[in-house]
């Protein structure tokens, strides 16, 4: 997605672009759910419905040379970083045209040219690599930032601690975006983390932490810019403590038996980032409908593209093991 003017608050046209991208992610994810239920999609799928403002707000603040790594819940990040929906959908269908050429799948999305260095199905798995990527940028004096997405649950894994500690110690240009959606799979926050504010985690490293409202794309965008400026300016890494909500199950098909009855309904009513942004920019019904039509076409097109894609040959499995 094209780069736009930066620093300071997002302009009205920019917010409209954000809206469009967030809606695209939403519709894409809904389509994923639908196609999964139709039995068309192999693998384990995790959608990010409710967390679209984080993906878009963060990724739109990035420069072209900046890179990201993500998690099992990476569709939104990947789209926001610039991968075409066709290539993403083709990957979910396991096609050669997919962004990982059918070798990765939903939990292993890559688009290196676009700066997407990999979704990771091991919680915390990408974090030290972001530290190392940022170290390489520092070594080479490149004004680039490496950014990691991860969840609240990931703050419990040792890898998280080591990776952030090292990043701070070495003052590398990295940004660590914690999407605190209050659950790790079925495990509510209070059952997995002894601290409620994820910013407390950053104190252990003396890392600058910024609290962000993840349902407000403007807030995400502005604070990501601050974080990037800080990191790019050689002042060390930043921890973005983004509070957000997962407005759906952990995985596609999750019956969510662990969730209080009304929680989901209430959150959907009050915490939908798309509704919030719509209100903020005052988008009329007609405008929305037209946008939705356009986006639905793109998403439907991605399914068509994917289905028409090329299945790998069985023996293709033997390629790409060694360089």
């Amino acid at each position, binding site marked *: 997605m094209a780069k736009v003017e930066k620093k300071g608050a997002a302009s009205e046209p920019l917010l409209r672009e954000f809206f469009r991208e967030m809606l695209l992610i939403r519709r894409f994810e809904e389509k994923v759910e639908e196609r999964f239920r139709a039995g068309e999609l*192999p*693998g*384990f799928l995790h959608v990010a419905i409710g967390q679209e403002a984080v993906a878009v707000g963060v990724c739109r603040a990035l420069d072209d040379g900046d890179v990201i790594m993500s998690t099992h819940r990476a569709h939104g990040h990947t789209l926001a970083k610039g991968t075409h929906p066709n290539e993403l959908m083709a*990957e979910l269908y*396991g*096609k050669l045209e997919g962004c*990982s050429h*059918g*070798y*990765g*799948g939903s*939990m*292993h999305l890559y688009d290196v040219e676009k700066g997407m260095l990999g979704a*990771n*199905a*091991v*919680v*915390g*798995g990408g974090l030290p690599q972001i530290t190392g990527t940022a170290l390489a940028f520092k070594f080479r004096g490149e004004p680039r930032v490496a950014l990691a997405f991860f969840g609240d*649950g*990931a703050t*419990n*894994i*040792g*890898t998280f601690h080591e990776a952030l500690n090292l990043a701070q110690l070495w003052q590398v240009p990295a940004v660590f975006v914690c999407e605190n959606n209050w659950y*790790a*799979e*079925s*495990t509510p926050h209070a*059952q*997995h*983390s002894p601290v409620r504010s994820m910013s407390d985690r950053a104190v252990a490293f003396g890392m600058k932490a910024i609290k962000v409202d993840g349902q407000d794309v403007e807030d995400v965008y502005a604070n990501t810019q601050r974080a990037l400026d800080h990191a790019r300016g050689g002042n060390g890494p930043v921890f973005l403590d983004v509070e957000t909500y997962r407005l759906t199950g952990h995985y596609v098909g999750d019956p969510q*038996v*662990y969730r209080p009855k009304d929680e989901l309904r209430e959150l959907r009513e009050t915490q939908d980032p798309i509704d919030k942004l719509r209100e903020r920019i005052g988008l009329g019904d007609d405008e929305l409908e037209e946008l939705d039509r356009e986006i639905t076409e793109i998403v439907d097109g991605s399914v068509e593209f994917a289905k028409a894609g090329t*299945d*790998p*040959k*069985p*023996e*293709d*499995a*033997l390629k790409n*093991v060694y360089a």
Partner: protein
Amino acid sequence: MPEISYREAVRDALSRAMREDDDVFVMGEDIAEMGGSMGVTQGMLDEFGPERVRNTPISEMAIVGAGIGAAMQGMRPVVEIMYEDFLTLSLEQIVNQAAKHRYMSGGQLKVPVTIRTQGGAGWSPGAQHAQQLEAWLVHIPGLKVVFASTPEDVRGLLWSAIYDDNPVVFFEHRTLYGIKGEVPEEIEPIELGKARIHRQGEDVTVVATGRLVHEALAAAQEAEAQGVSVEVFDPRTLQPLDERALIDSVKKTNRCVVAHEAVVRGGYGAEIAAVVQHGAFDWLDAPVERVGAKFVPLPFAPVMEEFVVPHAADVLEAIYRTVGRTA
């Protein structure tokens, strides 16, 4: 004899042990309300409460370590590692700690912890959710290693693992949870270190573990139709290995195939081949054939996944290679 699934069999062993014995408890990620990512512990929270069906944060190292600590106090914790691939995060505790405390203390300590995990291909989990790493653990003195293939075995072996005074790493295979089988009304513990011969045969011994036991049985049936009589041998306990039964079997059949889902190179099959060629050298009419996954990470696209991991047809081919040789 009631018929239950492999999943239910695991749950039954855990539940019965917990009913009888306050020292047994289970912990792991999402094992409480959700009942585990494979549904194994479903319903156990209601019966035993959150202290003994203990949901944990994503801390593979610490939960194994906590299990070790509790075990050293005489408890019998069963720790679930959601996917075998995540063993890589807890190996320090399993290999340097659980396996060695007894030895390093000159016999002062026991570590009766059981570490359950599951893995395997099927449903395109991709390269980080499907490895078969049992061979690693077999290489570590101080550990016992189990890989069960049927409901009856998984229940009897898990019971024995829980009550074994040593750390046991207990492998389950994802695609087996749904299979059904008859089990005795009461649990009959199965001694660790005793193999099971699923099927007697005369012409070739197929040593198989986990999912491949079932592939081997299917292959055996086909082979029989072609006049080749196949013995299917499941070690069940990979360490200690029932070497005597293994060698006896091969001495009878004079041929051996070993089959597992893990990649061939450096897999458990290498150990079996090494043991067999040594123990039955003069009896072997053909080299030991190894069947396993191709030497690649597990690819996502189903057509490639299918190609990479071994099936009954691969076992059958290996059987024919061994008998064809001298035929």
